[in-house]
């Protein structure tokens, strides 16, 4: 593999790309010119506007082909590596079954005054999120969703009663750092009550940084846009690690840059058009 590469159309080094976009400009020669200008500024030169089509009176849709002038230096590519693979649900199930020979118990809740169950429900409910089914869908997971405004002592009590392998806590409200304080209180309570026999602790919410796990005293933190499949993949990874290392020594997750070939990162998923009854 060469260090410097350009896109490949039909000849090495031709740099050919295709793209499509919409401009808020009425269709016509001026609109086509505007599309060419945008493509030029994106480094596509020469740019061919091969298709333009009005969308209503005020917008125009374009398909543009052209040669992009930029060069990719593979040595400069940095990717964030997930330390575990994403597995299809069937594989999550078979792996867990092999590892545990029983169902893995997941207890989820929104703690403190936070009533925003959107996050925890997106991860746990079978309906799921971004086209992925929630953890309830996995046959080898037993999911107990305690819902909103669960107190920390109640969470510890229920986690113990259910013999939870993992506890998922969602925090949306960030007023006066409530999300950070709540999670710290939660992790301290589990340590105090159960010591090294505590379940895996996982925190999630749109304002968390995945690098905060150590600071919060939890095993893993998931930020904005996390899908159920990522959580399921992590659970398999963590249980496997636990089987081979004593509980207290699970290293908190790291997201380290690595000098590897460009790895396709998970696509940024957002609202599906699937009907949301």
């Amino acid at each position, binding site marked *: 593999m060469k260090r410097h590469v350009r896109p490949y159309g039909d000849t090495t080094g031709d740099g050919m790309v295709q793209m499509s976009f919409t401009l808020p400009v009425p269709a016509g020669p001026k609109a086509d010119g505007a599309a060419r200008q945008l493509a030029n500024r994106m480094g596509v030169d020469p740019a061919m506007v091969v298709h333009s089509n009005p969308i209503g009176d005020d917008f125009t*849709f374009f398909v543009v082909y052209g040669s992009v002038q930029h060069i990719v230096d593979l040595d400069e590519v940095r990717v964030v590596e997930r330390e575990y693979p994403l597995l299809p649900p069937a594989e999550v199930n078979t792996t867990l079954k092999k590892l545990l020979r029983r169902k893995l118990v997941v207890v989820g809740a929104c703690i403190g005054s936070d009533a925003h169950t959107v996050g925890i429900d997106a991860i746990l409910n079978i309906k799921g999120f971004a086209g992925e*089914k929630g953890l309830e*869908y996995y046959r080898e997971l037993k999911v107990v969703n305690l819902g909103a405004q669960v107190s920390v002592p109640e969470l510890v009590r229920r986690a113990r009663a259910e013999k939870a392998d993992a506890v998922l806590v969602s925090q949306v409200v960030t007023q006066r750092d409530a999300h950070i304080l709540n999670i710290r209180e939660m992790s301290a309570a589990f340590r105090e009550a159960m010591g090294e026999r505590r379940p895996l602790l996982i925190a999630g919410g749109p304002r968390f940084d995945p690098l905060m796990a150590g600071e919060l005293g939890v095993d893993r933190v998931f930020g904005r846009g996390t899908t159920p499949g990522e959580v399921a993949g992590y659970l398999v990874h963590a249980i496997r690690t636990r089987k081979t290392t004593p509980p207290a020594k699970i290293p908190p997750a790291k997201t380290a840059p690595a000098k590897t070939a460009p790895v396709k990162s998970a696509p940024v*998923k957002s*609202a599906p*058009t*699937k009907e*949301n*009854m």
Partner: protein
Amino acid sequence: MALLDLDPKVVATARELAARAAEPVVALAKAHTTVAVERATLRLAGITGADSTHRAGDVPWVNRVVDTVREHCGLEHGVVLPVFHALREHGLAGLTDLAEATAAGQVRYRLPTGRDRDRAAKAATAAVTRGLKTVDRNRAQRDKLVARLGDPPRRPWIYLIVATGDIDEDVVQAKNAARAGADVIAVIRSTGQSLLDYVPEGATHHGFAGTYATQENFRIMRAALDDVSAEVGRYVRLTNYASGLCMPEIAVLAGLQRLDMMLNDSMYGILFRDINPVRTFVDQRFSRQVHARAGIIINTGEDNYLTTDDAVDAAHTVTVSQLLNEHFAHEAGLPDALLGLGHAFEIDPKVPESFRLELAHALLARELFPDAPLKWMPPTKHMTGDVFKGYLLDGFFTLAGVLTGQSILLVGMMTEAVVTPFLSDRDLALANVRYVLDAAGGLAEDFRPAPDGLIVKRAHQVLGEAVDLLARIVDDGLLDAIADGTFGLMKRPADGGRGADGVVAKADDYLNPASELLEAR
């Protein structure tokens, strides 16, 4: 146009089994009320607005009143008797005054007896009748507009979703979609609204992956679509979602604001939202009675089973659910013409002959329910982010819909599960649909599956499996079947789930004028 040669005896058996499976559930639904049914009744009686001074944010007046009545004298007699008795006793001008007095702690609710009871019942019936008259007027208005502007020129009707989170942006997108050919606009709700035990108030601008269903948002969008209907010369229909914990209230609001279609499934909330089964069946029955009165087409949610279970292996569960939905709908007074039973194009495209299997399933639904406006839903599970492949798959989906005579076609987006559709994604999707309809709109006329071919055999097989499953459900009981994970692989016990504490067994003297007026039809 019977192409599958289904045995009428088997079809009759399937319907009879569905009726028997539903019977105990209908009895259960008749014997209970819920906080949501009582709140919906008060909305029909004229309570609007919310208590904006409450520390938890805006709490709708209907919630304040129903909760307080429940605390003072229970809901087993219905909410209207204590409410209308208190109204007279305190000499208040209207229900909103009563709600304010309730919030201020000035009202002590009690169950009236004797002549007081008769007076309260009469006043409540008059108030609810006024609400139903608004619903009736809206229905007549829809008929008038359809007569004046016309229905879409052809079937299937083109159904498009908008979901920006901001009702004002939704209006812009919806009008553009209508101009580009959409016949039905659905405004997806904010994620998680189904789990709210109240209906938010007012125009809203900050939803999560959707826009809150509120009475004001309904009004704004219907008015916008009335404008654009006049402009494009056909009546553009509006859809929302009567599901979740507030199903009956949303149904009432839809009737009051002239919505035209509502998603309303008998089991979706139980299976996919973990809402208590009894709560769901009680709420569902009332909401369907309201829809029947309002002339609203319901859309059922069978597509969802195929996203969680395998679309080939579980094809018969769709048929079973359609038969159950049909029975529950008929029982609640909905005629076939208002029954938008759902199904979907969700078979893995890697399965050999997947398109022929899709045709078999779609044709089976068509022939089982010849007079129902079936709703045909696009691929979602196997849309991968490869938008080019997705565009082709959506074309095949539309072709299957045309070939099997589907009635309402939810337009597939090539960016399904990738991004919220761009303006251009919607435009391309509509172009895709238009191409198939223009190129092959009449192809059904030439379509005759071979009598012993794969399509016919597969349809017979699915119907057979559906009959077997219905027989098992009759033996086990529908609630137990749901608890065992028969549908969509979800196990939901009858005493579990959200909203169970909002279910109340009716007392012998239970009174609800809305139920009585709706039953009487």
